[in-house]
């Protein structure tokens, strides 16, 4: 049964488990208004980070039973893999950094070739990895319904490592891009195709641009030095897309055709987390049209959706910032 105060109707009989892969600094900002609403599984390979995560989780209602922290390294297949630990921890990946000094690297990799402190020194560590399917089995939950992945290039293989249980997932926020920082990195097109093929549709993208610094250093930037521009604040000047956080949501129409009311309720809930309140509102009628619930249920779901929006507005008016905005 639901413990949710924001979604008492949507989650009255439907469970909702959110999975954060790469949770080193607690939940992403846009999940935090809902930190008391769902069950969570947080996966982080760094043991010290996990200790801190557990402290935070234990202080919330439901504690570590509701918010589970798992120390693990994930891959798509499980087994022993090499972790390429970069000098800057956020660059560490199971994929090797692309270090070759060739035309591609010289053109795209700007400071990291001439000034490669982001990657170097680089440590290669062999470690045991598990798949999301393994984690799911160990946690004894019905599925990972909302997933955030940020693992420096292995996001898609990790997601697909959930196997058939990916069909129970209604939303995936996945970092992807075509920046070629890592060898064999899966790009945008492959990611879109793979997730479309699994019944997801692209609903939102957060763009992350990366501006070339002039002559190898972080400052001055091209924009400021050569174009007298304010950089990111200048609508007359943009830089090439570096990567994106893409938000894929299970196609509601497919869920309707399967007669899966639980999936639709989870989709509506996940849409609220991602500010897609109007889309969630529309699904109340879609499910009713399909006979998956009655008129009163639709009205109750709309109450939940409106309440979620009001609460988010209250957070924003109180100075809270979203993941999508610079903090």
């Amino acid at each position, binding site marked *: 049964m639901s413990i949710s105060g924001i979604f008492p*109707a949507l989650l009255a009989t439907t469970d909702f488990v959110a999975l954060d892969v790469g949770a080193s600094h607690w939940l992403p900002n846009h999940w935090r208004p809902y930190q008391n609403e769902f069950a969570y599984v947080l996966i982080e390979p760094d043991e010290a980070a996990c200790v801190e995560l557990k402290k935070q989780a234990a202080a919330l209602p439901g504690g570590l039973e509701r918010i589970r922290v798992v120390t693990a390294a994930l891959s798509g297949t499980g087994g022993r893999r090499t972790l390429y630990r970069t000098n800057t921890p956020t660059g560490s990946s199971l994929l090797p950094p692309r270090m070759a000094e060739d035309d591609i690297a010289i053109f795209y990799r700007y400071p990291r070739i001439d000034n490669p402190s982001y990657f170097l020194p680089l440590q290669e560590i062999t470690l045991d990895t598990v798949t999301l399917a393994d984690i799911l089995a160990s946690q004894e939950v019905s599925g990972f319904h909302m997933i955030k992945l940020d693992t420096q290039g292995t996001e898609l293989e990790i997601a697909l490592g959930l196997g058939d249980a990916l069909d129970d997932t209604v939303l995936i926020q996945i970092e992807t891009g075509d920046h070629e920082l890592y060898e064999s990195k899966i790009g945008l097109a492959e990611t879109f195709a793979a997730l479309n093929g699994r019944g997801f549709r692209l609903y939102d993208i957060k763009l992350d641009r990366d501006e070339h610094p002039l002559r190898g250093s972080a400052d001055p930037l091209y924009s400021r030095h050569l174009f007298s521009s304010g950089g990111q604040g200048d609508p007359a000047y943009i830089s090439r897309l570096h990567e994106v956080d893409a938000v894929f949501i299970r196609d509601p129409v497919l869920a309707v055709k399967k007669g899966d009311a639980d999936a639709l309720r989870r989709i509506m809930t996940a849409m609220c987390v991602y500010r897609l309140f109007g889309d969630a*509102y*529309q699904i*109340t*009628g*879609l499910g*009713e*049209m399909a006979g998956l619930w*009655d*008129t*009163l249920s*639709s*009205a*109750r779901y*709309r*109450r939940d959706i*409106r309440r979620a929006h009001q609460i988010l507005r209250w957070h924003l008016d109180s100075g809270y910032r979203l993941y999508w905005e610079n903090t």
Partner: protein
Amino acid sequence: MNAVPGLTRVRYEDHPAFAGVPFDDDPETAALASALGATLEQIRTRAKLPSTDVVHLLNSRIPPIIDPLFARLTERNGDLYYAADFFQRLKAKLIELIIQDYEVYADRGTHVYADHSETADSIAESLQKQGFWFGLLTPEAVQLLNDTVAEAKKTLWSRYENEKHIDREALTVNRWGGAEYSALAAVFNNEIVLNALSNYMGGSYVFMGCAFELSVPHTRWWTRRYGRDDESPLSAYYHNDESLRHPKMICYLCDVGETNGPTSLLPVGFEGEILGWIAGRALDHVREARGRDDVCSMDGALVATEPGRRVFARLPKAMRSLGHFGNDILAGSSQEAFILANRAVMTGGPGQFVLFDGARVPHRGGIVDQGHRWAFQVIYERKPA
């Protein structure tokens, strides 16, 4: 929603009162009626989507079907001198009810549930699933009602006892002074009831008005539609109300048992056959002759006269129905048996009430064998914007 097995529509083709009346099953008319029903059903379904522009759908999809349907009916039935005028009035009434019904469906498609209490929730659930809910006013509310209608009771009783009136119009008060209206509104605008009704209807609903009625024995208004002896007295006057947008309450102001006119309801409806359901409610208010509309006794119905039956029989089969269908059920029939087996009869004392959706739920009341009944018939309406 589908019609519940066991209470099928009356098949007038087989009704003894229609013996010798020719029914017209023109395929083209039937096809147009079928298309109209299907389109109405599509729009009703689409109205569940919050983004649907119901008014636009009605304006764009209904006229291209309903206009040729009624043109065809008029063209084919020139032999009945009154048919053209009848079909014109029926079409207008049908459109009026379609608009009213779909205003409610449109409301429901965007309504946001308003929380109040577990009781309000259970009332809304009951209205949704059964179409009605039984409740009981507090003794204080009953006292206020008694005080408010004290003069009206004297007047009505005098009309019955001294002037020997037994017709419903004479034994009803439905106009109130300001203080009386305020007192009645204070009772019937019960917060829990309003919240439940509003959630059920999909808008903000309030007390609109009420009639205070004295029901007495030896009346005929509810029976003898055809002047025949085969009408079921147990199902006579079961009917669906005209308007979907006015939910109702019947509230007793005396003890009511089995013999002094209890209100009874059927937890089933005909809204699954949408065209027949709307047409039936429209046909309750359109007679064959102009000026006879809105006669409220059963023997004043369209089908109570030979010309009325003839023009009724010219309608496509899907539209041959009446909101007041109970008088067309034959004594001893399976439909009568179904009603007896499934009806919910409200007996109780002062303050006992039923809140219900009269357009969905067939019901009857006020048919007294012995004694008399004092009751309010309360109407609710959507709060004006």
